[in-house]
């Protein structure tokens, strides 16, 4: 390491400096929010503590836990079905069950508030059954938020559980059978316990997603910490109270993250070793096949099929009544240009961090990389709050420009991108770079001619991922966008809030359609490995 540095002293040093600066800037929002919250007047703390905080904490954790329970049941049972049973259409369902990931929570939430709302199709059907006085529980409730978030996030658990089912060394199960334990007993006592790490990883993704979600809870008017932070900023403009709630939100997210890390550390020995035989699929009988089909079709229809159909019909009538005007094209352009700039900036910023951490893993460089992951526990409204405060203090002339929005996207989504950039760099052995150096190329030429071509795939994936997440981003965009600068996501939310379902549909449909190929693309790598 030191030799490499002394060979080319200037560039690596400047690279380190860049990484250090970037890491510091990425950490700034989190630090600023913490500072604002901790330096707040004790009276504000105690007021919040006696009024809002207990309710918000309870609502947030209750939602997270119920969604976790729901996704656990849905995700694991569906994964088991497609990984261990053979029934007509199994291959199609195996893919289709991933599609709900393409549905942003606010889109699903607005469709369900129409479907289940007063006078909606489900209530009408119910009234045909039980008479005109039949009422259904409102979707604008804990139950409604749970339903929508569960349907939207179960693919996280499904995907990881499916991979675990397929990768499990089947010898464990066969040994259990040889010990005289039935099929069901083996599933409960061997298979599921061995899958615990995968299931927990899936659940922790779900919980982080739920805790930081703004779109669904705001449309369903369910008070969680994220929603409250947004209201504090917009409704009463009380940045101090907002920062206190934000800090709380960050702590909640951190608790879940640390718990997951701790669990993963503890269950390292769960790794299966040695040769393994892939488990076979058992053919379903006619009854089993019917049940399996009904179940998978039902879940798919509820989470993607019906919502996509509604979007398509609404879009059709909206388009035929002239919704696709120049304004709409402007929204598309806003979304695409903003997300494109943000994703490109994020890749450029992430490169030195990931490169240094994998090639010169000194303590400082690794710390810089870790700092970039701070955005993980920075839900959209919190990032927006921090940037609002920082910009109004330090650079008021930037206030209300698109640049602030780009910074928010980068801070928020760089962790997701790094997760794909880092392994791509790790997989390129340093020997290749050393070979290039021995052939007379300098660091920069080596980077350009050897490293970058090899990591292109991972970086393109990172770019696509960050682009799409920026496209879908809602709360920070709502709070930070320049006046009159609407994106597709913002339009969906604004129209849906006013219950103009048809007007919201074309933008929502466009987001979903753009997301699907990318999801399939990103999955196809893991898919084959599993």
């Amino acid at each position, binding site marked *: 390491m030191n030799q490499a540095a002394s060979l080319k002293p200037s560039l690596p040093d400047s690279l380190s400096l860049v990484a250090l600066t970037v890491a510091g800037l990425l950490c700034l929002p989190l630090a600023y929010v913490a500072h604002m919250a901790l330096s707040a007047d004790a009276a504000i703390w105690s007021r919040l503590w006696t009024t809002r905080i207990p309710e918000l904490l309870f609502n947030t954790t209750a939602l997270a836990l119920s969604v976790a329970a729901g996704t656990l049941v849905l995700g694991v049972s569906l994964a088991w079905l497609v990984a261990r049973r053979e029934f007509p259409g199994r291959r199609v369902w195996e893919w289709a069950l991933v599609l709900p990931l393409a549905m942003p929570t606010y889109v699903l939430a607005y469709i369900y508030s129409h479907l289940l709302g007063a006078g909606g199709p489900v209530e009408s059907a119910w009234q045909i059954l039980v008479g005109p006085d039949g009422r259904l529980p409102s979707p604008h409730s804990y139950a409604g938020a749970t339903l929508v978030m569960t349907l939207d996030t179960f693919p996280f658990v499904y995907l990881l559980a499916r991979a675990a089912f397929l990768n499990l*060394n089947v*010898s*464990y199960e*066969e*040994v*259990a*059978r*040889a*010990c*005289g*334990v*039935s*099929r069901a007993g083996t599933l409960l*006592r*061997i298979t599921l*316990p*061995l899958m*615990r790490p995968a299931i927990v990883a899936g659940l922790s993704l779900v919980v982080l997603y739920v805790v930081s979600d703004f779109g669904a809870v705001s449309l369903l008017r369910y008070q969680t910490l994220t929603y409250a932070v947004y209201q504090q900023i917009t409704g009463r403009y009380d940045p101090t109270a907002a920062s206190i709630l934000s800090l709380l939100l960050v702590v909640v997210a951190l608790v879940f993250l640390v718990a997951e890390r701790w669990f993963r550390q503890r*269950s390292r*020995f*769960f*790794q*299966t*070793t*040695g*040769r*393994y035989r892939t488990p076979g699929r058992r053919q379903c009988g006619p009854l089993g096949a019917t049940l399996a089909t009904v179940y998978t079709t039902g879940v798919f229809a509820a989470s993607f099929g019906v919502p996509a159909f509604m979007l398509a019909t609404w879009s059709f009538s909206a388009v035929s009544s002239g919704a696709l005007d120049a304004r709409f094209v402007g929204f598309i352009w806003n979304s695409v240009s903003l997300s494109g700039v943000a994703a490109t900036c994020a890749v450029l910023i992430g490169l030195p961090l990931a490169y240094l951490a994998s090639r010169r893993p000194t303590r400082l460089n690794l710390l810089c990389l870790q700092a970039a992951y701070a955005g993980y526990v920075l839900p959209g409204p919190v990032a927006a709050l921090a940037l609002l405060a920082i910009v109004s203090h330090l650079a008021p002339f930037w206030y209300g420009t698109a640049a602030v929005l780009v910074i928010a996207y980068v801070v928020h989504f760089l962790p997701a991108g790094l997760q794909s950039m880092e392994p791509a760099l790790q997989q390129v052995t340093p020997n290749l770079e050393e070979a290039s150096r021995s052939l007379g190329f300098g660091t920069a030429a080596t980077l350009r001619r050897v490293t970058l071509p090899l990591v292109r795939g991972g970086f393109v994936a990172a770019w696509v991922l960050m682009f799409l997440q920026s496209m879908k981003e809602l709360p920070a965009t709502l709070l930070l966008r320049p006046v009159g600068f609407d994106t597709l996501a913002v339009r969906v939310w604004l129209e849906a809030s006013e219950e103009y379902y048809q007007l919201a549909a074309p933008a929502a449909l466009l987001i979903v359609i753009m997301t699907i190929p990318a999801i399939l693309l990103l999955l196809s790598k893991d898919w084959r490995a599993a």
Partner: protein
Amino acid sequence: MFQSDPMPPPAEQTARAADPHGGAQRPVVLELRNLSCAYGADRPAIADISFSAQEGEIVCLLGPSGCGKTTTLRAVAGFEPVTKGEIRLEGRLVSAPGHLVPTEQRRIGMVFQEYALFPHLRVRDNIAFGLRHLSSDERASKVRLMLEMVGLTALAARYPHELSGGQQQRVALARALVQKPAVLLLDEPFSNLDPDMAGKMREDLHDLLRRTKTTAILVTHDHDEAFAMADRIAVLNNGRLEQLDTPEAIYHTPSTPFVADFVGQADFIPGTIENGTVQTEIGLFPNQAGYPSDAQVVVMIRPDDIHIVPVERSFAHIVGRRFHGSENLYTVGLPSGRVVHSSEPSTTVYPVGTPVELQVNATHTVLFDQRLGP
């Protein structure tokens, strides 16, 4: 390694007590009749395999990879359905076309190549895994006995990843034996151990199986392992049973060139039947198999049946020597360009190029029809 012995003393001391040709017949525990399994309609894995195992007998399934030995074992375990024939365990029909008694109802024990110890359970819980039907006291005492028997009492609270390979294997064995299985199935149990450890474990396993009078089917591709462990060996090739016999018979009187070649070093010298004897370039051999005149045959000779003596002039010369520690394996070139091998004592060293006379122990040679191979 297996110091303490809570089981009653062994009834018989002779290693080959289960020789099916001698002594009182003991009940047949496992019987395969004309068994065939297939992966697909036109992809037979094994075909027409028949053999049986008596109580306490150790049968080895020996063959190269892909020969169907593991498929046979998995069919006995109930993991592979059968397309023809049947399997009987303790007289009960457990596998036949369209009939498959689930594994858990077969009273079998299984030890996998990679042991498949449940990584989330401690050693004692691994062993107790199949004993759910017992009270916790009974369970604990059985596990304790078993741990003593395999010498792992001190490691009862460990997790599998905290054990060495040999220890893991003993846990896997204990987990299978504590069920008192009708038949114990072992799939290449020594292949994950280094050779020294494997030798020691082989002895221990043999001893343990004898003491517990366990009927065992062991799959291996290593003929030394089969010789050391088995009462009888079934040699499989391309899904078919080539020979089922005692280790001695498999080695000395192989029924096919494949078996001869697979179970040890062998040379095949072509010859012709003339005047009731086999004429070859290294001399005459008796026509034990009674081939007709002018038949084309090959003579199978093992290196330990060829002794070389240096002479002044000879048609045969030493062309190579490999030192194996306990023996020197000489390669001897013949005028036809063919080579034969000779096993000589470790201390007998001749230089390459030495002309030698071949002294062949003709009583141990085996004749095959030339058309059979090798």
